[in-house]
């Protein structure tokens, strides 16, 4: 590895560290595992920098991060237990004060996102939180663009359905 390559990997990793960590958090569910996976990915990226064949560098880096996360997931010997999401209770929501209501909606949103199957969750995270293009997401996940689109559509539909009781209760104008 020459100086240029090392610099390139370091620069790339630092530049997209938030994205890497965020993806790790949503895949692994906790900060420590996410940080470990990102660190693994950093070392692995440096080792395989020579295999980088051009193209979108952020997607290349996030693909490595994702692989490290999936490796960590399987080494846990079990899937992250999907947390049961309590249904919103329309009767009680109208009683809470407005700000608390919005905060509650956001917590709910996070819980529903967390409860989504991995393939929808990671696609939505890359699209909505990291603002990746379909092409970049396809590169990170190693799937065709058509698959990215159908996962986004399905993921969004699931989220919308999950949030419906809340939205009906009060339009909080977000």
């Amino acid at each position, binding site marked *: 590895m*020459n100086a240029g390559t090392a610099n390139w990997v*370091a620069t790339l990793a630092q*530049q997209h560290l938030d994205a890497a960590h965020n993806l790790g958090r949503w895949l692994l569910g906790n900060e420590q595992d996410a940080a470990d996976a*990102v*660190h693994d990915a950093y070392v692995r990226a440096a080792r395989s920098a020579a295999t980088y064949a051009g193209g979108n560098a952020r997607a290349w880096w996030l693909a490595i991060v994702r692989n490290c996360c999936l490796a960590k997931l399987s080494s846990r010997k079990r899937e992250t237990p999907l947390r049961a999401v309590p249904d919103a209770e329309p009767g009680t929501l109208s009683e809470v004060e407005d700000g608390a209501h919005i905060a509650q909606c956001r917590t709910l949103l996070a819980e529903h996102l967390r409860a989504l199957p991995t393939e929808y969750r990671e696609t939505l995270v890359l699209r909505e939180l990291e603002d990746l293009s379909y092409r970049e997401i396809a590169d990170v996940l190693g799937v065709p663009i058509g698959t990215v689109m159908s996962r986004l559509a399905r993921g969004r539909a699931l989220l919308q359905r999950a949030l419906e009781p809340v939205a009906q209760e009060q339009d909080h104008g977000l």
Partner: protein
Amino acid sequence: MDCNFRQTQLEAYLDGELERADARELEAHLDDCAECRAALDRLDALRRELRAAGLRHTAPESLRARIAATPLTAAPGAMAPRRMRDGVWRYAAALLLAFGTGGVSVQMWNSARGADAMLAHDIYASHWRALAATSPVDVVSSDRHTVKPWFAGKVAQSPTVRDFADQGFPLVGGRVDYLGAQRVPVLVYRHGQHLIDVFVLPPGSALSPATNAREAGYALQFVALDGAPAAIVSDMDAHELAAFAQLLSKAPTS
């Protein structure tokens, strides 16, 4: 084409991934179809909620420091003396990034999650979509007397249209574009090789001078266009942008 197909197109459209021609066709359909408009609004609302909910976990400083302090293992055959030097440079680069670029982008993301940022984001997306299209304008004309009437009937209020060819910013034409789910007039100018979009925003838009920012080499500048809030987006450098903003806001109304 039936509405079911349109529904699947709506997502690509909202994500800025629809080809220009398809987007145009969809927009024409949106004008007629309340059901699709409602679906687009729902998608838009979900997206805004997702992005506003603070769901993004930024990297903790401890991770940033840990990465910066990790020596990268040399591939077999690398020369030892160079590794030493690499380390120094790598560390310097990492530090610079952590406190420079990294810090700034985190800052932008964290501080700008409000309506301002959402709008700025939509404006950039719209601008980039137009750049990727075959033609960034729907009405091609350097004559403001052609462009202004063209907007009538397409948007609630025709914007003030002026030509600045003499000052080096010729009017190229105009288009109607969507910001999120909202239709706005866009005036298109050119300066040398730079394409300039002027988004005329609805009165009372959240955009403020505080939103002025650069993203991926493109700059956004807030300006008052004959009393209406407007946003200039272009890849011009700061000086050119400032000059154009001044022309736009100072020129006498005709």
